[in-house]
């Protein structure tokens, strides 16, 4: 099998980065950023997940089709949430009847 062998120190470096990001996300949550709290939390989580995917799960060294699969999964999740939100976000847009 033509498997790429990742060096051990890479794994440890990734682990340390993940720890730092975990501490960061807890710390950021204690600061009032208004609506950006959720953005920060999700961006940090996405970074962590990307590191796990690329290195721990070897996506970086795998065929492109694997990355495409993951991308499809995330895209479909985004479609599910996004299109459902089109309903919820715009429910109040229609003006109340003028008769009120």
């Amino acid at each position, binding site marked *: *099998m*033509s*498997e790429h*062998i*990742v060096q*051990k120190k890479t*794994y*440890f470096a*990734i*682990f340390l980065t*993940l*720890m730092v990001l*975990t501490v960061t*996300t*807890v710390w950021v*949550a*204690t*600061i*009032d950023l208004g609506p950006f*709290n*959720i953005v920060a*939390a*999700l961006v*940090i*989580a996405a970074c*962590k*997940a990307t590191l*796990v*995917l690329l*290195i*721990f*799960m*070897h996506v970086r060294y*795998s*065929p492109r*089709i*694997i990355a495409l*699969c*993951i991308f*499809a*999964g*995330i895209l*479909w*999740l985004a479609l*599910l*949430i996004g299109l*459902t*939100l089109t309903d*919820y*976000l715009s429910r109040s847009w229609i003006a109340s009847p003028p008769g009120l």
Partner: protein
Amino acid sequence: MTIPVRREQPLPDRSAGLAHHFDDLEQQHAAGSLGMWLFLVTEILFFGGLFAAYAIYRWQYPAAFAVASHEADLVMGTINTIVLIGSSLTMALAVHYAQLGNRKAVVAFLILTMVLGVAFLGIKGAEYHHKYLDNHFPGPDFVFPGPYAQQAELFFIFYFIMTGLHALHMVIGIGLLSTVAVLAWRGCYSSEHFAPVELAGLYWHFVDVVWIFLFPLLYLIDRHK
């Protein structure tokens, strides 16, 4: 009628670990890995339904979700995050040694991974126990002081379903790893054939990734208030 030109190909040799319908180990490995990834994609969408429902309700009731989230145990949650990421590291190392064909190291790191997994579940159980004592278990006995009782219950429904489903995946993962560990101990794998270790690892890392998102969504809403 013409029959297309065919090159006669003999059936391939059957080497160890190669199933009858594959041509070679490389093809078998590609199939196994793609299959596992596709399965993980279905898992994304399986949790995805919950994430979508969570997103809608959190968007509708931001204040209630923030207040209810403060009831989640931040210390235990953070420790669990560290434990789980640690188990991902040991899992990655187990796969690493499998690639090198180091049988003992593979088994050792698999066991370490399972120990961390069990630790995670233990802490989770303690959290559930506290929630139960606080009457934060959704249903007729649910109690939540303050103005947001109704919608806080909604938050806790998601808290328990999402973390519960995640914990169920952990249990399945530990079962997988123990099987793989036994087989590894018996010497079923080599540096040529270690796909089961790798695939179990993919599953384990995926469970970790789910937690990476659950943690901020359930424990870290507006902690500054």
